[in-house]
């Protein structure tokens, strides 16, 4: 299932499949297509999301996060190998 990053649940993981906007800025911080992201926390009332990819933790505004598509159907083995 592909969802936008802003809709991911706490603690779940997924692989980024598409970054529709702001890709340059996001890439620079380590948010790139093909990376596994884990949702660390979502701030209430449309606050930012905080995600972890590898050793990097990044806070992303909610609208920017909604431009990031994530596939949450990933094989756990794939995550382990990464």
């Amino acid at each position: 299932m592909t969802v936008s990053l802003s809709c991911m649940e706490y603690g779940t993981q997924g692989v980024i499949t598409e970054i529709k906007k702001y890709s340059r800025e996001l890439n620079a911080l380590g948010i790139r297509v093909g990376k596994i992201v884990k949702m660390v926390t979502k701030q209430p009332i449309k606050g930012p999301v905080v995600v972890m990819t590898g050793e990097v933790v990044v806070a992303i505004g909610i609208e920017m996060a909604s431009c990031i598509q994530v596939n949450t159907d990933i094989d756990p083995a794939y995550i382990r190998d990464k």
Partner: protein
Amino acid sequence: MKDERSMILLIGNPNVGKSVLFNRLTGGDAVVSNYPGTTVDYTKGTVLLDKKSYTVIDVPGAYSLEARDKAEEVCVKMLEANKNAIAVIVLDATRIERGLYIALETIERGLSAVVALNMIDSARDREISVDSSKLQKILGIPVVETSAVSGEGLKQLGDMIRKARPSNIKEIKERSEGKEIQPETGSKCPGCCGGCGGV
């Protein structure tokens, strides 16, 4: 300020321990200056290496040389104004990938460079192993493992600054594609082909 190779620029992402490294290198004589035409501060100091005195500049942290904010703009301007400077590219050993981008950009601009693989001790704590000799081989510039906090590797870094050299991005590309990949560093997962990402 622009005389031959007596200027050292510390370049790297924010939060990679650049300023601690700067303090370690320069001792206590840093001066905060303002970059002309902006309000972005940077610190400047001097270091004596093998009886030669160098001006060291702690360039504002940046993720890329395609500037996004004013601090990054200053970083770009400093690189352009000091083409003969020696770039000390500071990487956080626990988050190398992100720092490599600006490292490659710096190399592409033709600066003589050396890489400080900083925070190497926290990388060890996190069981991240970095093959620095391999990195050195691919990049074609000296790579020194350092820990600005404990002081590890700082003497070697001082020695290597004098051996900084420019590298060629085309050759880096070829070397990275070269089929000399050691078996133990090759990744075995099926999803890791080509440029589709993965650590």
